[in-house]
């Protein structure tokens, strides 16, 4: 698990007299990861990218953090994750450090791919986290195969695969979920339905109302959750994982959310009606979790702010480290195409 240095939210909450509250503990962890993700992505998008220190595409999950954090924290460390491009916190949850992620974005050797690939195209088999390829939904059949393998190995673990609404249109989504269903493979499919795929609104992506409506056609239970509600995502994922561990096969969760940015850093999202951003800003998952924590006495405003400050400092350090990380030597161009003996 991640070295969660900044996660020392005072354990002395107003309920401190009572036994440690697992819900409170979870909320603190969740807020930590959600804010960490947002902070790292803000650096990437609003600083490093604009400063030209990051080249290439930059996609962020601003406003969607509850999904990857909710699902990621529901999983066991031995469950296998297939993040998509707006799921950065999954890496942190699995212990990949912010500095490594920042180095990855800047093409430095300090990143998990040593500059071979960029941005969220990273993975680490030791941490059971698999790198996407760019083709949307290509991970779905691969995750199905990973889930089949876990079953083959007699493992009680499962696989969680993440993707967007747009990805569901691809043949690979279909073939992957269908095969997993036929095989009763322990696969949890987590769709972030953020209303857009690049400029394409979801009603131009599909003619049904919900991604979850696709479940019955695969014989896969499907549920819809508020993707901006960390607890809702977490509970649904826990249900899905339990289903998978019981050998009942795949489970589809549609997390309704909203993409609070353009598709990527270069995209102004001019095609998105302004009022939607305003409406969804009010539903921000971080604000929402903060509110929950304060209202339920899990943390005070001051404690939260102090945690944020620590995270910012942690990310400052990470950024400094990453910027010092060297670029790969051109000789690395030719390495690792095949196994080197």
């Amino acid at each position, binding site marked *: 698990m991640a070295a969660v240095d900044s996660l020392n939210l005072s354990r002395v909450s107003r309920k401190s007299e009572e036994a440690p509250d697992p819900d409170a503990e979870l909320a603190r962890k969740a807020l930590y990861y959600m804010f960490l993700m947002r902070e790292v992505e803000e650096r990437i998008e609003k600083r490093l990218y604009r400063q030209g220190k990051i*080249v*290439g*595409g930059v996609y962020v999950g601003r406003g969607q953090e509850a999904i990857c954090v909710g699902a990621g924290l529901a999983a066991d460390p031995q469950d296998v994750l297939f993040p998509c491009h707006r799921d950065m916190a999954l890496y942190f949850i699995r212990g990949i450090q912010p500095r490594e992620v920042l180095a990855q974005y800047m*093409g*430095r050797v300090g990143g998990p*791919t*040593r*500059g*071979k*690939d*960029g*941005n969220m*195209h990273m993975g680490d088999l030791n941490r059971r986290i698999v790198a996407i*390829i*760019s*083709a*949307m*939904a290509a991970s779905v059949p691969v995750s199905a195969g990973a889930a089949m393998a876990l079953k083959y190995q007699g493992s009680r673990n499962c696989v969680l695969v993440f993707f967007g609404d*747009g*990805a569901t*249109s*691809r*043949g*690979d989504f279909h073939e992957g979920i269908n095969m997993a269903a036929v095989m009763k493979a322990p696969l949890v499919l987590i769709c972030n339905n953020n209303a857009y*795929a*690049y*400029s*394409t609104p979801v009603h*131009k*992506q*599909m003619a049904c109302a919900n991604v979850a409506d696709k479940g019955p056609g695969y014989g896969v239970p499907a549920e819809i959750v508020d993707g901006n509600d960390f607890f809702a995502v977490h509970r649904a994922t826990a249900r899905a994982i339990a289903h998978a561990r019981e050998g009942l096969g795949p489970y589809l969760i549609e997390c309704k959310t909203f993409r609070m940015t353009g598709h990527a850093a270069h995209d102004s999202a001019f*095609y998105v009606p302004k009022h939607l951003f305003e409406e969804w800003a009010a539903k921000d998952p971080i604000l929402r979790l903060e509110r929950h924590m304060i209202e339920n006495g899990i943390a005070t405003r001051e404690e939260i702010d102090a945690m944020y400050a620590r995270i910012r400092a942690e990310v400052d350090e990470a950024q400094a480290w990453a910027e010092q990380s060297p*670029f*790969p*030597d*051109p000789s*690395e*161009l*030719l390495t690792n*195409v095949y196994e080197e003996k």
Partner: protein
Amino acid sequence: MPTTYLEAIRQGIWEEMERDPNVFCIGEDIGVYGGAFKVTAGMLEAFGEKRVVDTPISESAIVGAAIGASLMGLRPIAEMQYADFISCAFDQVVNFAAKCRYRWNAPVPIVVRAPSGGGTHGGPFHSQSPEAWFVHTPGLKVVMPGTARDAKGLIKAAIRDNDPVIFFEHKALYRRLKEEIPEGDYTVPIGKARVFREGKDLSIITYGAMLYVAQEAAETLEKEGVSTEIIDMRTLLPIDEETVLASVKKTSRAILLHEATLTGGFGAEIAARIAEKAFEYLDAPIARVAAPDTPIPFSTPLEQAFFPNADKVLEKARWLCAY
């Protein structure tokens, strides 16, 4: 008026849309957004939703739908958001589109536009140059303009062509290349290479963005007393063997240059044809300069090392000339 490579393609499509009501565009984010690279910008407003069709993320269905529409008499222009994603439509391209005419005499006049090529920090999945796969697929035509003039003339020719055309557009040229092009309607014939620069000592046979690498090398060689001819293939299938052989017969030395990876690339085919059909004219080995056989790395120093450049061409050129 100086026109960018991108604008030239846009103009070509636009004029064909105006000329022929059967021409329409189909692809992801090509309408409201105007396409990931803005090649179709403004077309939705000008031609309406009927003729500028935004689709779900379904490359196979985009190409498939284009084929189906073409069978009904329309002339679809399908956009792959990046050439890399044509792999998702591969079966439709190589098995459906390419073989209909031969099998049952059904023409499939589609254009599949595929922004390809690297140098834009795209990493492994937004930089590929997959033309060779299609050059090995009888029934397809494969085009890749290297100049703005040709970009317009060839996209128009592709749209009017009665066979399926895979139209590669070099992303790095979209906005960097700006030049005078003829006013109004003209086409550039598919299947005809052109002498991009005349010379007599050495032929560099290339296409796309590598033209300018060849050009840079040629200028240096000029100073070294070597007169370099550059052939811009423009169409990769069917191959204009005549122009290639004529050049090599004149210069007796040939370098094949492309940014796609070396092994099994387009250069191999041209080298093989020269080695079979102009052997007796050769004064030196046939050299190839291409990207190494690796995926395309992301980080700038690796990316720079990956792509061919003038130095790599010069090294081979000097070897051939000293041979």
